[in-house]
């Protein structure tokens, strides 16, 4: 069984992944909608920008985030001036790193599910007297909901596995930023760490598999719902 320290690591990982999904779901819906319905030449550029963290090496993403949020970065300085604290090397930094890296998966899943909603349904809604926002909330979003949930689950799974950006932006602080991947890496370099590594690896595989199965089930529901 897991030791108390390992349970703490799993708990921290779940909290970080959970918060990263919660923080990105509303911006994810907005961007997914924009990328699905906005007819502008700038759309391709925006899409590229959103997808960038998916293809950048996570360590590079972490470096860019640190340049922005570290104690000499512009946002980091501003935060320090207002709150007196810092962003980097906190649990919050873990959440930011995980959310950034998982965001493209979230947006893409939402975008695809919004694209598959028939725009004529939105037309009918508007001609029945419901404005753009009401139409989005009453028609588009409910019909795209399985895609939103699938995106949330996928980005949750991605957040659980996040290592590169996390280690750069948040470091490796026990109880604060030592999530499962960071802990596994640390334990691998520790004498007698093998059994703990195996246990954490097993938990990691189980959680990721469960998330993938859930995402697949939601994606099937999405297709069935539109058939």
């Amino acid at each position, binding site marked *: 069984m897991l030791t108390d320290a390992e349970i703490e690591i799993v708990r921290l990982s779940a909290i970080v992944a959970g918060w990263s999904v919660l923080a990105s779901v509303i911006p994810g819906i907005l961007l997914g909608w924009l990328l699905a319905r906005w007819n502008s030449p700038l759309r391709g550029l925006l899409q590229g920008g959103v997808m960038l963290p998916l293809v950048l090496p996570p360590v590079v993403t972490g470096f860019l985030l640190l340049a922005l949020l570290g104690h000499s970065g512009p946002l980091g300085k501003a935060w320090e001036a207002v709150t007196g604290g810092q962003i980097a090397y906190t649990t919050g930094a873990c959440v930011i790193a995980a959310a950034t890296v998982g965001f493209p998966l979230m947006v893409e899943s939402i975008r695809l599910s919004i694209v598959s909603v028939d725009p004529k349904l939105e037309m*009918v*809604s*508007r*001609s*029945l007297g*419901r*404005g753009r926002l009401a139409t989005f909330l*009453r028609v588009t979003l*409910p019909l795209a909901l399985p895609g939103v949930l699938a995106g949330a689950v996928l980005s949750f799974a991605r957040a659980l596995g996040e290592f590169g950006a996390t280690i750069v932006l948040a470091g490796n602080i026990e109880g604060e930023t030592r999530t499962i991947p960071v802990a596994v890496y640390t334990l691998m370099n520790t004498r007698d760490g093998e059994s703990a590594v195996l246990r954490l690896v097993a938990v990691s595989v189980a959680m990721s598999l469960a998330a993938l199965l859930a995402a697949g089930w939601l994606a099937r529901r999405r297709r069935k719902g539109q058939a």
Partner: protein
Amino acid sequence: MSIEARIHHAFRGFTLDLKFESAGPVVGLFGASGSGKTTLLNCVAGFIKPREGKIAVNTRVVCNRPGGTWSPPERRKLAIVTQEPLLFPHLSTRANLAYAPGAADRLEDTSGWKILDVLRLKPLLERAPATLSGGEKQRVALGRALLSAPEMLLLDEPTSALDAELAREVLALLLDVKRELKIPMLFVTHKAPELMALADDCIVLAEGKLLAQGPPVQVLSRPRAIGVANLVGVDNLLRLQVVRHDEPGGVTLLDLGGHELAAPLSTADAGKHVSVGIYADEIMLCLEKPAGLSARNALPCRVLRVDAIDHEVLVGVRVGATELLARITPAAAEELKLQPEAAAVAVIKTAACHLLG
């Protein structure tokens, strides 16, 4: 009720450029596919912003561009019903009907009950949209639009995705809606019988331009002359009242401008109107009434115009108040010496009078 539109809009190699005014209350937009009728409807609905134009419904200006008013679709009070019913799949039938602002309240009072009654929607309320048949879905879509209390209903070929029998059923419902609920409509169709049955005024479009406007009988009675013969399918499309049936004789007698036209036996009751199509080729012209004729109809008429087009001659004649178009050869025209105002007799076989329902 009235609608007034002046639109100039060009996109993707197509230009819509027209101006019309109509007092309706039911206006039919008629034309071939690609003539611009759906584009026009979408301009009225507010889904297409014309480059230049002014659109007013009941004198309320919904669009005046460039520079002026632009109401978004949700503020126009013009509910659209399209070919596909487009029910919201995540909502129940009842929730679909209650979708528009205020519709839930209307469902609970007499104005809503009347709509449910006319469209026979009560048995469908508790069923999921996915379990409804095509015709039932279209009834719900109509009900949903009417329950939004629109000033005018916009219909984009509401029967064309349905098979012939269901299309007749939906057309009958639209007639009930017109009669019972007195709601003005602007409807797009490429089916002449639908236009005849439903429209009070008819706008004919071709290649984005207004070709003709008037009551459907008038517009469609000379389809070849206004270039819609291929749409109408017959050259003479008439809306005639049933006078009586002669069952032993196998004919139904229709009132054609004071004369009786013998058509094949119909099931329509006396006093009702039926649509009759007659091809111009199937009308024979004689200078005087022939004797010993098997054809049941020999109608005295007066020649209105004689138009030679390529190797055929189109002769417009007037029987009572009705105009008919006959097609003859140049040789026959030469021999009969047909001139405007000349008296003639139009001979039509009973079987040539095609009842269109």
